[in-house]
């Protein structure tokens, strides 16, 4: 008996690797043949989830030269197509030998995505433009499961659909998808006025949504709610929000790096958190390890763009804070002397033996008095027990905070006046806030958008970002009153407001003010304030020199200056340092009358507006810079560490 020599199998997969099936449908090409004279063998793809047979042979003229002994080599190409379950499979490419057995010639991973939600429109057509108010019909099918709701979306419209009509044709087309049998739908109503590409949106049983785009365009010009005066084809006027240009200054790595823990009295949504986040980001970029503890709402960390520090809750920090190098904090920066901050700081110093720096940004006794509605003297005379009872955790206890400052290794203050609260001889560093240069930079007024927003030509837009609370209610009321005075005197002024009101500070003025104020509520992401603030013509910080304002530095001021608009502010805190009519417009008292006069003057004097805009930018460039502030703060930390 004569025994023939075994055939030598060769093959390769030509589909670029890694092998992917992006819509659940596998499409693979390659070649497979014997070196000896023999017809190209049947080929298959075998996975644990299923098998795909050869779909068709293809010509491969190049193989004849490589396998001259096989006259059939030029027919050695293959294509395999078919569905496979979603997942990453190990795909065995096998060829059938003359004896009927299968032999592996290649093995690759194959990532198969789930088959997508699919939909088609059939009536009144599958493509083109629909201009009539008609019902639409079609089919919608999600191979992964049931659809619980279906709608058609185009332009600003969303039309509900009734799904579940029998479709035997689709049942035959998708035999492995039982829901195909009832995948027909009809729109619940006729099309409403609107214009845009039609999408079919499905709500799935899993709670997720899926969209299928169609080649159909809807262009219904009018309906009972939309007259011909509305042009759905008009171009949308967007609010521009360009990114900052310019590279960050190079940062010399800190050696050795410090473990720094900031402790905030409120969540990451607070103004203080903006300062701490900016400093922690800069210090982290300089090589230090930073963590920021907040008493509640850790999720508000998401409001910050790309934080370079770790956020944690007080509850977690109480058990000790360990940094990446396995050590605890070298220095704890208590952001204010407020009770919740003080308690955690004292606890962590006992545990870690770290140095403590206390940051002061308000006249804390005055803030407590304003919040509790009791004078400072009255509070000082309260018994220890009564004082402990009335002081809330997010304000400073008059006695405990003094002791806390006395025991601290150093202090930072936001204004020079706050040094009064720092014990004599204690190292103290003044720390000015700045504006996030990624978002707050000179922005032109978006004229097109203002053209849409303004009620008429010559309108002035003021912008006030920030919450209203007992401590600033009276002065914010003056700003609102100024808006009223200006509108009453024929100067159309709109005040854009963001932030929350914790007190009713307008009383009977509210109704008259309503047409002139656009309250936008809390803007979750601080970076979105910048393009909104660019809508303003003038920024106003109301107030006057007093026991509250002299000690604070409104955190919005650096942002006002950085955006390059005239800034009207009272002669207190920063107002004492800027030059009137050069850097800003300084009022002895930024009350309603003073603000209204300043706005009138500015609207009448474009040259002054231009000068103050340029002056604001120059002042911001010279004085507000988080990078410089952080470098100076790091130097201060270092001096404490070595003292």
């Amino acid at each position, binding site marked *: 008996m004569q025994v023939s020599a075994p055939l030598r199998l060769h093959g390769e997969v030509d589909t670029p*690797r*890694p092998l992917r099936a992006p819509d659940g449908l596998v499409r693979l090409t390659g070649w497979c043949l014997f070196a000896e004279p023999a017809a190209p063998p049947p080929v298959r793809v075998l996975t644990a989830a299923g098998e795909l047979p050869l779909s068709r042979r293809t010509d491969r003229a190049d193989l004849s030269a490589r396998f001259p002994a096989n006259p059939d080599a030029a027919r050695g190409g293959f294509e395999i197509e078919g569905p496979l379950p979603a997942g990453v499979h*190990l795909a065995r490419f096998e060829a059938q030998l003359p004896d009927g057995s299968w032999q592996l010639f290649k*093995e*690759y991973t194959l990532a198969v995505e789930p088959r997508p939600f699919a939909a088609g429109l059939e009536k009144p057509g599958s493509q083109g433009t629909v201009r009539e108010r008609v019902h639409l019909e079609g089919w919608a099918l999600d191979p992964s499961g049931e659809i619980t709701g279906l709608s058609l979306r185009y332009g600003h419209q969303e039309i509900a659909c009734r799904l579940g009509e029998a479709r035997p044709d689709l049942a035959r087309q998708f035999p492995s998808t039982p829901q195909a049998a009832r995948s027909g739908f009809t729109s619940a109503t006729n099309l409403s006025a609107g214009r845009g590409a039609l999408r079919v949106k499905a709500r799935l049983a899993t709670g997720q949504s899926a969209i299928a785009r169609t080649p159909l365009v809807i262009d219904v010009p009018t309906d009972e709610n939309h007259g011909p005066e509305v042009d759905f084809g008009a171009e949308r006027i967007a609010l521009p929000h360009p990114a900052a240009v310019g590279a960050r200054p190079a940062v010399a790595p800190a050696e050795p790096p410090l473990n720094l823990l900031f402790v905030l009295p409120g969540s990451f949504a607070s103004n203080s958190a903006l300062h701490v986040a900016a400093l922690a980001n800069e210090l982290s970029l300089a090589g230090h390890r930073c963590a920021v503890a907040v008493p509640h709402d850790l999720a508000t960390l998401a409001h910050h763009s790309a934080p370079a520090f770790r956020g944690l809750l007080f509850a977690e920090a109480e058990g000790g804070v360990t940094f990446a190098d396995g050590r605890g904090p070298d220095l704890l920066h208590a952001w204010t002397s407020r009770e919740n901050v003080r308690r955690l700081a004292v606890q962590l110093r006992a545990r870690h033996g770290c140095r403590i720096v206390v940051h002061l940004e308000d006249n804390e006794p005055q803030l407590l008095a304003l919040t509790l509605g009791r004078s400072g003297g009255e509070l000082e005379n309260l018994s220890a027990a009564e004082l402990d009872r009335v002081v809330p955790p997010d304000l400073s206890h008059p006695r405990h905070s003094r002791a806390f400052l006395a025991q601290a290794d150093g202090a930072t203050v936001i204004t020079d006046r706050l040094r009064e609260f720092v014990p004599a001889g204690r190292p103290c560093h003044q720390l000015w806030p700045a504006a996030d240069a990624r978002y707050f930079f000179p922005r032109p007024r978006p004229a097109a958008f203002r053209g849409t927003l303004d*009620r008429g030509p010559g309108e002035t837009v003021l912008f006030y970002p920030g919450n209203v609370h007992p401590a600033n209610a009276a002065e914010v009321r003056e700003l609102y009153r100024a808006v009223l005075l200006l509108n009453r005197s024929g100067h159309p002024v709109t005040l854009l407001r963001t932030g929350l009101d914790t007190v009713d500070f307008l009383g009977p003025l509210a109704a008259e003010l309503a047409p002139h104020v*656009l309250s936008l509520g809390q803007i979750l992401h601080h970076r979105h304030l910048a393009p*909104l603030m660019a809508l303003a013509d003038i920024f106003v910080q109301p107030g006057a020199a007093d026991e509250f304002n002299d000690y604070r530095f409104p955190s919005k001021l650096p942002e006002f200056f950085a955006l390059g608009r005239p800034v009207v502010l009272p002669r207190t805190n920063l107002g004492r340092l800027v030059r009137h009519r050069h850097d800003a417009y300084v009022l002895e008292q930024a009350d309603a009358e003073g603000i209204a006069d300043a706005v009138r003057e500015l609207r009448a004097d474009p040259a002054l507006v231009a000068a103050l805009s340029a002056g604001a930018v120059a002042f911001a460039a010279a004085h507000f810079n988080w990078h410089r502030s952080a470098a100076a703060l790091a130097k201060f930390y270092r001096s404490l560490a070595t003292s």
Partner: protein
Amino acid sequence: MKSAPPETAELLQRVRQQLILAQVRIMELEDARDELHPKLATAEHLLAQAQTLADAKVEEAAHLENVRAALQLQFEHLRHMQHVTNEALVATRAQLAAAENRIEGLANSVAASQSVAARLAEVAARLERELEAANATSASRLTRLGELDAELRATKASRSWRWTKWLRALERTFSGR
């Protein structure tokens, strides 16, 4: 500023407010999109890397399987060789044993031969000694013979011998010799 009817003014105010809030929402959605795009790209990249790595491992596994198969063949060959070698070893050991037996026999023969040789050597030594003694005797006798020969030649050369030649001839004649 001419004021609009209250309802219109209120509507306008709401529209203006919503206009800005819609822009805020758009910015948030754009942020979400911009955050998701790199994450999606990263996920795609990671999947591609994971697949590439897995493909490399599959290829390595296939190569290792080929190596294992080749080693298995070598093992089978070596096992066969071992069997053949074992058989040859057994045969060689048998031959060796036979050879050793033969060597032992030869050794015994050699020993016997050596014994005979020793005895022969002793005989040879004795014969040697006897030969030497005989040689010595022979030498002394040869010496004596020489002396006698010389003496004879001297005698025969002497005048008396020559003068008595006739007498000896007479004697031989008479004695019958």
